C-alpha cells in the first residue's frame, strides 16, 4: 500500500487511530478481521447460501424485540394476560413490537427449514462439514422449542391448553418422561410457577443455547469454508475434464489391449484419474 503524506491528521482521526492501534496491539484484531473479511470463498457462491445469515439476522431481531417486550411483560398468572393486552393496546408501538416478535418466529422457522433444505440438497453436510450439520440440527430443535415455550407466555386459553397437551406428551415418554414433565411444569401440576419457568426457559436458557451453538456453527463454517454449489462453473469444468480423461483412458486401454503401444506414459496417468 502506498501512503500519501498530506500533512498532519486532524485530531479526531488521530484519536481514533490511536484507540484502534491500542486495541490491535493487544488483540491482533486488525489481522484476523482482515483475514475474516477478505478470505477467499468459491467464486460461484449462490443466493441460496444467504439463508443461514438470514436466520442469524432474524435471531438478532427476535432478541431485540424480545428484550423490548420483556420491559413490559409480567410473568405471573394474574398479570401476564393483562400485560400483553397493555403492550398490544396502550404502549407506543407496542402492537408493532409484539407483531414483529410473533411473525418473526414464524418467518425464522421457515428460513431455518429452507436453509436446512439447501444444505441437504447440495450435499453440503458431507466431509468435512458433518459437525456443521450436527450443530445446525441442534439449532433447529432449539428454534422449535423457542416457539413452544413462547406460545404459553401470552396466557390465553388456546395456548394454555395446547401447552398442557404438549407437556403431557413430553411427560408420557418412557423412563425420563415424568421427570421432564415435572421440570417443565415446575411440579406435578400446572401451577403459578409454571409460567415463570417457561419465561425463564424462553428468554434465558434457550437463547443462551442458540447463541452458543450459532458460535460453534460459525466456527466450523469459517474454518472449513463455505461449500461450492454442485453446479458451479469451475466444478462442472473439472467434471467434464475428468469425463474426457476417463474416456481417453478407456480408448487407450482398448488400443493397448490390441497391442498398439504408442504412448504408455499417458495410459498410466489416466488409469490414476479413473480410480479417483
Amino acid at each position: 500500500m502506498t501512503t500519501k503524506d498530506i500533512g498532519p491528521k486532524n485530531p479526531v482521526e488521530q484519536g481514533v487511530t490511536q484507540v484502534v492501534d491500542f486495541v490491535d496491539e493487544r488483540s491482533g484484531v486488525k489481522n484476523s478481521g482482515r483475514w475474516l473479511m477478505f478470505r477467499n470463498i468459491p467464486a460461484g457462491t449462490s443466493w441460496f447460501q444467504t439463508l443461514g445469515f438470514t436466520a442469524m439476522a432474524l435471531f438478532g431481531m427476535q432478541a431485540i424485540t424480545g428484550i423490548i417486550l420483556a420491559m413490559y411483560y409480567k410473568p405471573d398468572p394474574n398479570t401476564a394476560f393483562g400485560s400483553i393486552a397493555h403492550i398490544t393496546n396502550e404502549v407506543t408501538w407496542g402492537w408493532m413490537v409484539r407483531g414483529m416478535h410473533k411473525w418473526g418466529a414464524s418467518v425464522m422457522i421457515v428460513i431455518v427449514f429452507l436453509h436446512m433444505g439447501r444444505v441437504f440438497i447440495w450435499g453440503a453436510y458431507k466431509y468435512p462439514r458433518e459437525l456443521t450439520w450436527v450443530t445446525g440440527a441442534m439449532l433447529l430443535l432449539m428454534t422449535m422449542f423457542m416457539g413452544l415455550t413462547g406460545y404459553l407466555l401470552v396466557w390465553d386459553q388456546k395456548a394454555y391448553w395446547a401447552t398442557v397437551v404438549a407437556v403431557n406428551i413430553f411427560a408420557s415418554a418412557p423412563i425420563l418422561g415424568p421427570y421432564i414433565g415435572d421440570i417443565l411444569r415446575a411440579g406435578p401440576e400446572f401451577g403459578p410457577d409454571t409460567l415463570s419457568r417457561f419465561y425463564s426457559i424462553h428468554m434465558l436458557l434457550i437463547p443462551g443455547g442458540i447463541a452458543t451453538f450459532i458460535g460453534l456453527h460459525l466456527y466450523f463454517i469459517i474454518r472449513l469454508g463455505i461449500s461450492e454449489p454442485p453446479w458451479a462453473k469451475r466444478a462442472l469444468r473439472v467434471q467434464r475434464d475428468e469425463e474426457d480423461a476417463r474416456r481417453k483412458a478407456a480408448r487407450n486401454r482398448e488400443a493397448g489391449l490390441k497391442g498398439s503401444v504408442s504412448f504408455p506414459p499417458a495410459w498410466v496417468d489416466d488409469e490414476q484419474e479413473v480410480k479417483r
Partner: protein
Amino acid sequence: MKKADKVAYDKDYAAAKKDGKPFFPYAIYKDTIIAGLAILVVIVLAITVRVEMGEPVNPASTDFLPRPDWYFYFAFELLKIFANQNALTPVIMATFMVPNILIILLVIWPFIDRGPERRIWKRPFAMGTAVLVISGLCYLTFLGASTPEGIAKGETLPLTGLDAAASAGEAVYLANGCSSCHMIKGVGAPGPGPELTNEGAKGWDNAKMVQWMKVPVAPMPSFASLPPEDLENLSTFLNGLGTKYK
C-alpha cells in the same frame, strides 16, 4: 468416505478457493439483501396482519381448543393418525417413537449418507428422502391448517334414546370442549383423540370412566376439576354410546 475421496475433496475445494472471490463484498452483499428482505417481510406482516388477544386463561374452564402454532401442526396431525387404534402402544408411536426416530435421523444423517457424490441427479436416495420428508411435512401442515377446530356453539350431537343422566352427560361433553379432540357420529374434530361413537362397546363401568377422566393417558389432559356429578353423568353418557345411545 474413503481416505482417497477426502484427499480428492480437499484438493478440489482448495482449487475452488484459489479461483474464488473475497468474502467481502461478494457474499456479504447478497446476505445483506436477503436478510433485509426477510426483515421487511416481518415488518409488513406485523403491520397488515395484527396479532390478536385471545381469551385469558381460566384453569377451571376446560372449554378450550388445544391448538399449537402452525409449525407444530405436523406433530398434531401425527397424533391424529394414531388416534383411532385401541391399544395404548400406538399413542406412544406418535408421542415418542416417531418423533424421536426422526430427530435421531436428522442429527446423524451425515454419518448415514457418506458417499463423496454431491451432484443432485447422482444422489437418488438422498433426493428421494428429501422429496418424501418435504412433501410429508407440507401435507401434514396443510391438513392441520384445514381441518375444523371442533363444533360451532349451539351445535348438538345427532343421538337418540338419551335418558336424563345421559342428556346431562352430553351437556358436560359439549361444554368442556371434548369435541375439539373427539368425534361422535361425524361431529367434532377427527383427532387427536379417538372416535367415541362406539365407546359403550368397551363395556367400562362408570367408576372406571371417572378414573380415566381424572388420570387419562397423554396427550389427553385431566378433567379432575369437574364436579363429581358431572363426571358421573359424563361417564353414563360415554358408556352408553353406540349401545344404548345411537
